[in-house]
């Protein structure tokens, strides 16, 4: 009986806190939600089209490039024993909506280059 009451109390308190955080969302976030909703509703006016097909050649080339880099260079750091990178990992990353991953790699390479340059200047 006490357990049930304690559970209900926890649920109520969690709900109150959660609801207050929902009420306190800032205007910029609400605006983005509003924009997202209207973008979603535009789907009602749009004829159904398959769009990912046009990315297939890009994804294929990107996949081949990444695999080639890995084959040539091997792992750059120490890979954890339970963290082996598999073909499936690359397949998942190279889905059409994961191509931004390649941009991340470029970005991190740029950061490395900037760091190296800065160290060169200091040393």
């Amino acid at each position, binding site marked *: 009986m006490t357990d049930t009451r304690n559970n209900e109390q926890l649920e109520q308190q*969690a709900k109150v806190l959660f609801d207050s955080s929902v009420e306190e*969302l800032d205007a910029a976030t609400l605006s983005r939600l509003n924009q997202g*909703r209207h973008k979603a*509703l535009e*789907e009602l006016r749009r004829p159904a089209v398959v769009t990912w097909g046009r990315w297939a050649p890009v994804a294929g080339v990107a996949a081949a490039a990444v695999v080639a880099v890995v084959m040539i260079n091997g792992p*750059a750091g120490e*890979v*954890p024993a339970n*963290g082996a990178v598999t073909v499936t990992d690359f397949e998942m990353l190279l889905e059409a909506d994961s191509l931004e991953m390649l941009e991340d790699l470029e970005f991190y390479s740029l950061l490395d280059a900037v760091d190296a340059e800065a160290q060169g200047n200091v040393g």
Partner: protein
Amino acid sequence: MGADALQREQQLNRFLAEVERRALRIAEIAVRDRDEALDLVQEAMIKLVRNYSDRAGDEWAPLFYRILQNGIRDWHRRQKVRNRVMVWFGKGAAADDDYDVTAQAPDPAGRTPEAQLQADEALRRLEDTVHELPARQREAFMLRTFEGLDVAGTAVAMGCSAGSVKTHYSRAVHTLREKLGDHW
């Protein structure tokens, strides 16, 4: 656009406006990043409209949350793989500790700084603890408690049986009570 289509659009607009803020916070607690959560919610809204706009209105909530939960699970899988690949390339895993609930919250109206601080702290502890739950328990707890779906709706959203929902939910509440007990 015909009258029926216009009415359907208005119904969908009302439904999405009703759920979007709670959905955002639920996604945010799961992925700990507001921008990512916004993307996940928008993607779920688009998929619901594209694939299920012709379904009965009372089916939308479980379907919407099913899409959102799938998106969240997929996001976690991709993050895990991304971090592994970053290690492979020698870039290291992305930091996950720069999330600050207090910084995200706007200034509330009508509360003393002390009360606001207490509420922020309680919310932070709740979010941390909910986030640390196993994924299925977290889903069950947030869908039942935060969104208010019933057991059947939660089962549809989670893609499992009503019995599993009850089990996950019960374990979630038990764990939360254990971890939050001293502070609540």
